[in-house]
């Protein structure tokens, strides 16, 4: 790993500081405005009716009853739905899905919108929707992974992962002196951001103004514009705050398009907010998987093969196949590696990317399989992973742009106290007689970049305005991006006004793939650099400036002053430079994306190691996670406080995946029977104790100018396996289905 930056970049004093959230006051006083908090004058409320069967046709809706209800102003059904300009089956932008917008009377999954009711009040619209009382011609629903024949995935971009094969897989199997062949299952999970999907839509002529939570503002503008046949510039989106996204709020969904259509039809603003139950259907989920892993080792416990086959559920009408098997690429130095994907089509809403798509499910299976292999080899799971540590990317031989995984293992193990772990299971009990177990998992996550633009404006008083349509869905963009911008301008943070969350700003790109800070931050960094460069030119040409004639000498910016590099006696303030030039302001532009040559040369990943302790009641088999330590190396950390929160959040999603989350279908109707927070369990505060995060610094000159890798998703990766492995260590039982339930342990 290179220990010095090849292209040194200017880092000021703001990045790296645990600054508290700049939007903190707005969020604790209730003044942070989320989509559904907007109530323009003359507003109509929209409520849609979700299908209560999973496959078939709607044969009757009692439109008359709904229309007769006081306050109901419109009932939209497939029979009277105004035309859309765009095709609901087309996918107008990257990350798009086919949407359900009352195009016909067919039902393709439970929860699909089958009618929309508008009312003067929410109560009237809700009652009107209830009065529609649909009748159906139902067909048998396929909701279990065995309900359909598995088919190979035709690779082709988003949602259709290609398989990967490196080395001679057959030879790898043949060379193994010990081997395992295990199958793991993961359940369907629903994002369930606390803020449900919503929209407040207003038309003025052919201009559309939207409050809508979106993880990709400009891309969403293009998507909405497509459906309504207007130029993307005619769509304005305001999304200053998102109440969580987790991958489900990237692009337009059917219900949102319907509400916008209703606003167009009625000429009035329309608000739609999904109910919690409606979050289980048309807005994506993590598809269920079944994964077979065959691992082999030689006599020295070196992996000869990792052969990972994933079967994933997608919908009957669109493709998103969880790329779970690909999680086995890039991590362990196996002689041969194979990842393959197949899919089944079920009568469910189309799955989509959910926090660590592919990696979360794939790593859950892989890390458990690694534990089983270590057990078969009779060696400690950490030692087994170290023996198979990859110094270069397995299969491709590419160098890693940086990789401090060994340090993560060491520091995490040390902090956790891993060295005291007995090799065999069922050896530890606590003072209350609870079975105690320790497990671990490795975390790997790619660090993609998208493309983003930004603008920085230095004002005559020496303060600055920086702008990009970045998104804060909780990760802390309002704060971390402002820190980056301040450093790029050589200004203290409080001299920088940061604007984001609005589509009229320079394109901040996509808040996804854990790449937003790197991408939008990179653009801000470049915009600030552009201002400083111009400022230097002005000063150097100005006979009255102390910097006059500094010519080619580089300048550095600090605390609102420009200095000649290496000569602190020569400096000039931003405000003075601008004043003498008679400029009211100076504008710089920047953009960022990954340098293609670096992407070609290097394998770029964040890494981590997670260690977990569980306690299991020997009679009741209730499982509690009592301690977790996660050590992560993710390049440069801009704000340690916020990064820690994100990593902790990810680890708690790991607890959730391992022990809580599962959407259960009634096989007779195909409906999800636990579609609310009483039945669909996510961790609450009492489920979370003893979590700790360590970050290992990496200087990575190749990922991007700032050396940022991203921390939004990696916390969940590795955590699931660590918990399952700890349960084995406590009880001696391998439960190969997630979430791990009490009944699985009772009957094991």
């Amino acid at each position, binding site marked *: 790993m290179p220990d010095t930056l090849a292209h040194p970049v200017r880092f000021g004093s703001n990045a790296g500081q645990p600054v*508290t*959230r700049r*939007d*903190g*006051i*707005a*969020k*604790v*006083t*209730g*003044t*942070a*405005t*989320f989509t*559904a*908090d*907007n*109530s323009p004058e003359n507003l109509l*409320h929209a409520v849609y009716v979700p299908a209560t069967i999973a496959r078939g046709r709607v044969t009757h809706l009692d439109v008359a009853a709904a229309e007769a209800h006081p306050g109901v102003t419109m009932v939209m059904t497939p029979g009277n739905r105004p035309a859309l300009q765009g095709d609901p089956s087309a996918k107008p932008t990257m990350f798009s899905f086919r949407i359900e917008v009352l195009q016909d009377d067919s039902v393709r999954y439970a929860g699909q919108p089958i009618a929309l009711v508008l009312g003067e*009040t*929410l*109560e009237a619209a809700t009652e009107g929707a209830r009065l529609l009382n649909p009748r159906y011609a139902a067909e048998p629903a396929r909701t279990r992974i065995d309900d359909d024949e598995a088919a190979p995935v035709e690779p082709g971009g988003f949602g259709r992962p290609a398989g990967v094969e490196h080395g001679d897989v057959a030879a790898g199997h043949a060379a193994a002196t010990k081997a395992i062949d295990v199958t793991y299952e993961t359940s369907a999970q629903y994002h*369930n*951001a*606390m*803020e*449900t999907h919503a929209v407040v839509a207003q038309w003025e002529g052919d201009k559309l103004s939207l409050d809508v939570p979106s993880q990709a503002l400009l891309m969403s503008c293009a998507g909405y514009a497509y459906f309504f046949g207007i130029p993307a510039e005619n769509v304005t989106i305001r999304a200053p*705050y*998102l*109440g*969580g996204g*987790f991958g489900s709020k990237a692009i337009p969904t059917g219900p949102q398009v319907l509400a916008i259509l209703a606003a167009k039809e009625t000429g009035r603003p329309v608000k739609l*907010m999904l*109910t*919690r139950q409606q979050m289980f259907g048309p807005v994506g989920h993590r598809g269920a998987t079944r994964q077979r892993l065959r691992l082999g080792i030689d006599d020295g416990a070196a992996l000869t093969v990792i052969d990972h086959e994933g079967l994933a559920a997608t919908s009957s009408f669109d493709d998103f196949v969880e790329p779970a098997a690909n999680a086995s690429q890039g991590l362990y130095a196996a002689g041969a590696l194979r990842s393959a994907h197949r899919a089944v089509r079920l009568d469910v809403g189309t799955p989509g990317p959910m926090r660590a798509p592919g990696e979360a499910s794939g790593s859950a299976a892989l890390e458990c399989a690694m534990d089983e292999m270590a057990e078969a080899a009779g060696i400690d799971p950490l030692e087994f992973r170290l023996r198979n540590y990859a110094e270069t990317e397995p299969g491709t031989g590419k160098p890693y742009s940086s990789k401090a995984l060994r340090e993560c293992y060491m520091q995490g193990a040390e902090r956790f106290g891993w060295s005291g772990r007995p090799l065999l299971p069922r050896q530890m009990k606590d003072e209350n007689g609870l079975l105690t177990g320790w497990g671990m998992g490795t975390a790997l996550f790619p660090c993609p970049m998208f493309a983003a633009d930004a603008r920085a404006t230095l004002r005559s008083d020496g303060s600055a305005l920086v702008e990009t349509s970045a998104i*804060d*869905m*909780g*990760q*802390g963009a309002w704060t971390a991006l402002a820190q980056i911008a301040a450093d790029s301008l050589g200004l203290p943070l409080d001299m920088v006004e940061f604007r984001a969350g609005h589509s009229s700003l320079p394109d901040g790109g996509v808040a996804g793939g854990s790449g937003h800070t790197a991408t939008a931050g990179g653009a801000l960094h470049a915009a600030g650099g552009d201002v400083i460069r111009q400022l230097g030119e002005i000063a150097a040409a100005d006979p009255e400036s102390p910097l006059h004639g500094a010519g080619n000498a580089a300048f550095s910016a600090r605390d609102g002053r420009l200095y000649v590099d290496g000569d602190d006696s020569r400096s000039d303030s931003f405000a003075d430079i601008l004043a003498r030039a008679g400029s009211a302001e100076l504008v710089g532009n920047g953009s960022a994306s990954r340098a293609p040559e670096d992407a070609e040369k290097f394998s770029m990943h964040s890494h981590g190691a997670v260690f977990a302790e569980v306690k299991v009641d020997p009679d009741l088999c209730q499982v509690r996670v009592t301690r977790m330590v996660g050590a992560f190396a993710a390049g440069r950390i801009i704000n340690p*406080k*916020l990064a*820690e*929160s994100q990593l*902790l*959040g990810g680890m*708690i*999603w790991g607890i959730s995946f391992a022990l809580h989350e599962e959407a259960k279908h009634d096989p007779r109707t195909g409906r999800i029977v636990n579609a*609310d*927070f*009483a039945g669909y369990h*996510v*961790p*609450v*505060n*009492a*489920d*979370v*104790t003893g*979590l700790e995060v360590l970050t290992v610094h990496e200087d990575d000159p190749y990922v991007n100018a700032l050396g940022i890798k991203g921390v939004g998703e990696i916390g969940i990766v590795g955590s699931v396996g660590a918990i399952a492995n700890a349960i084995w260590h406590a009880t001696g039982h391998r439960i190969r289905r997630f979430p791990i339930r009490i009944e699985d342990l009772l009957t094991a």
Partner: protein
Amino acid sequence: MSLSIRLTINGAPRDIALEDARVTLLDLLRERLALPGTKKGCDRGQCGACTVIVNGKRVNSCLTLAATLDGAQVTTIEGLATGDRLHPVQEAFIEQDGFQCGYCTPGQIMSAVGLIAEGRAGDDPERIREGMSGNICRCAAYHGITLAVQEATRRMAEAEKGDAA
């Protein structure tokens, strides 16, 4: 049919003509009184996002019909700070990073205010976690939430001692 009720909301008396008996306190605040700080996360008492203080107790405003509240005192997130001075719980949430997206936060904070007033948890983290478990945070900011409630509890107890002395 119109029903009229009188509520004191964040200290200010309000006479409210309710044209619809189905209106919950949550929807009354959000859709009719321009107080959208209180959030809707489930609308059925399962997440705590809508927590407000009614007559000194924390309640799920989504489960409370407005029409049943004639004469009640209601405090929402908008009424917690005194001018620019944040309530100690609000301050502690910022300092301890007790939120990420901030959507569950008004409910968490009102719930914490209620919990502290109940006096059953003190600064014991186990009890705080239990007492705050009616408030789901999907961002999972629980670590910071627990620290924030602990911190605020201590500060408020100290301030009270100071006042008494």
